[in-house]
C-alpha cells in the first residue's frame, strides 16, 4: 500500500490532469457525425504520435557508446515520426476531399 500512496502523492498533479483529460476527450468527441469517424480516428492516431517526444528524450540521453540503446532509440524515433507524419498527412488527404464540398 505504501508505494501506491507514495506514487499518488508524487504524481498528484499528473493524476488530476489524467482524470480531467479523460473527461475532456469524451466531451470533445461526443457530437461527431458518423461521416467524420474515419478522419477523426486518423487525426487522433496522429496525435498519439506525441510518443515521439519520449523517444527523443530517451535517445538524447543514451550513452554514445551504448549501441543497443542507440539502435533501439533510433528505431523508436523513426517509428514515432512515421506515426506523426503519416498520421497527419493521411488525415489531411481525407479532409481535403470534404473541404471541396462544404464551400
Amino acid at each position, binding site marked *: 500500500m505504501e508505494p501506491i500512496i507514495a*506514487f499518488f502523492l508524487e*504524481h498528484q498533479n*499528473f493524476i488530476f*490532469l*489524467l482524470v480531467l*483529460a*479523460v473527461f475532456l*476527450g469524451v466531451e*470533445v*468527441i461526443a457530437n*461527431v*457525425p*458518423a461521416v*467524420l*469517424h*474515419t*478522419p*477523426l*480516428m*486518423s*487525426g*487522433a*492516431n*496522429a*496525435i*498519439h*504520435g506525441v*510518443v*515521439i*517526444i*519520449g*523517444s527523443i528524450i*530517451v*535517445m*538524447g*540521453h543514451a550513452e*554514445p557508446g*551504448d549501441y543497443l*540503446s*542507440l539502435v533501439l*532509440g533510433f*528505431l*523508436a*524515433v523513426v*517509428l514515432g*515520426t*512515421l506515426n*506523426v*507524419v*503519416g*498520421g497527419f*498527412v*493521411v488525415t*489531411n488527404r*481525407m*479532409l481535403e*476531399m*470534404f473541404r471541396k*464540398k*462544404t464551400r
Partner: protein
Amino acid sequence: MKSIQHFIDIWPGNFALQIIYLLSSITFIVGLKRLSSPDRARQGNLLAAAGMGLAILGTIFLHRSPISPDGSEGFRPIGNLVWIFGGIGLGTVLGWMMAMRVKMTAMPQMVSFFNGMGGACAALIGLIEYRGLSAHGGTADTGFLLIIYLGVWIGSVSFAGSMIAYGKLEERIKDFGGRSLQMVNLLFLGALVAAMAFGIAQPDAVPALPWIVAAGSLVYGVLFVLPIGGADMPVVISLLNSFTGIAAALGGFLYNNQVMLTGGILVGSAGTILTILMCQAMNRSLLNVLIGSFGGKGGAASATGEQVVKEISATDAAILCAYAQRVSIVPGYGLAVAQAQHTCHEFEKQLSEKGVEVTYAIHPVAGRMPGHMNVLLAEADVAYPKMLEMEDANPQMPNTDVVIVIGANDVVNPAAESDPSSPIYGMPIIHVDKARNVIVMKRSMGKGYAGIENQLFFGKNTRMLFGDAKSSLEKLVAEVKAL
C-alpha cells in the same frame, strides 16, 4: 518549491519549453474538437500538426534532464542529435511517401499501420528506459517499474494487433480460430499480468523479464486480433488506437511530460468513445465484438431449400433508374474494392440531369471503417448533402422507386431484424426491402463479410446485376447516355 526555483535558475529554457508544451496541448484539444465538424476539420488537423511540430522542436532544443535526481549536479541537454535528426528525417520521408501514395480505399489499413508504429515506439521507449535503469544499478521504485511494464505491454499489443488488422484488411490474413483460441488468449493474458506483477515485486530476479513481457505481448496482440472477424476490424483499429494513446500517456508519466500525457490520454479516451460509438452503430457490445467471433460462423442462418434470384440486364436497370423519381444508392465495401466511386458519381450526375432525385444512403459501418463510404464518395466529389445517414435515409425508403445496392451485403440484410438466430441479429440496417425496386450489384452470389445468407437477394422486388461494380456502373452510364 525550492527545487523548481532551482530548476528555473539553472535552465531558463525549461520555462519556455513548458509554455510550448502548454500551447501544444491546447492545439491538440482544439484540433480534436475541430476534427468533429466538417467545415473546420482540416484546419483542426493542421493546427494539431503545427502543435506537434512545435513540441518536437522544443523538446530537441530546450529539454534538459537532471544528471542526479534532485538536479544538484546540473542538467544535460539532448545529445545524439545526428541520430535524432537522422531518424526524424527518415521517418518523415517514409511516412510522407506512404501517406501520399496510399489509395483512398486502403485508408483504414494505413491508419492501422501508423497506429502500430506508435505502439512499437512506446514499447521501445519502455525497454530502453529499463536498460538504462539496470545499467546504472539504480533503485527501481515500484511506480516507475509499473509504468515501464504497462508501456511495454500495451505498446507491444497495439503494434502486433495493428499489424494483424492491417493484414486482414489487405486480405492477406484470414480469420483464424474461434472460441477455443479466445480461452487460450485469456490464459495467456493472465500469464502476462502475472509476469509483470512478479517483475514489479522482484525487480532483480529476472533481468530480461521486460523483454520476455514484450515478446509475450507481441504474441498476445496477434492472438487477440486473429479470431476477430474481418468485418469488425474498424472497431479493433479504433480500440488499438486508444491503446496506443494510453501507452503514449504512460510515457508522459515516465518523463513528467505534460504534453505526452495530455495528447495520449485525449486519444485514449476519445478513441474509447469512438470505439463504443462504432459498436453502438452495429447494436453490439464491445465484449461481443471481441469474443463473439462474428466472422467465423458461416451459414448460421442457412436458407431453406433452393431459391432463385432474378437477374436484370444493364439496359433494363438503366431504364428503370432513368425513369424513376427517386433513386437511392447504398454503397458498401464492393464499391471500394472496385474503385468505382468516380463512376458511381458519374452515374448519379447523369440521373440528376434526367431529373431523377438521387441520394446516397450510408450505413454507419458500411465498408471497413465508419465513414469509409463518405470518404470515398467525397473523393469522387459527391456533394455532402446528398449523403444521408441511415436514420435520415430509412424513412424515405417506402417512397423510393429504385434502390441500387453497390457491393453492400450485411448492412442491408433483413435477417438482422427478422431472424434471432442470425449472428447479425439486432444490428440496425438500411431498409432497402421497403423500396419499390431493388437492384443489387454484386460480383457473385458469395456471402458478405459476416458469411451469412441474405434473404434480400431473393425478395420479390429484387433484381441482381452481377459483375464488378465498376464495369457494371460503366455499362449503366453508357446505357443512360444512350437513352
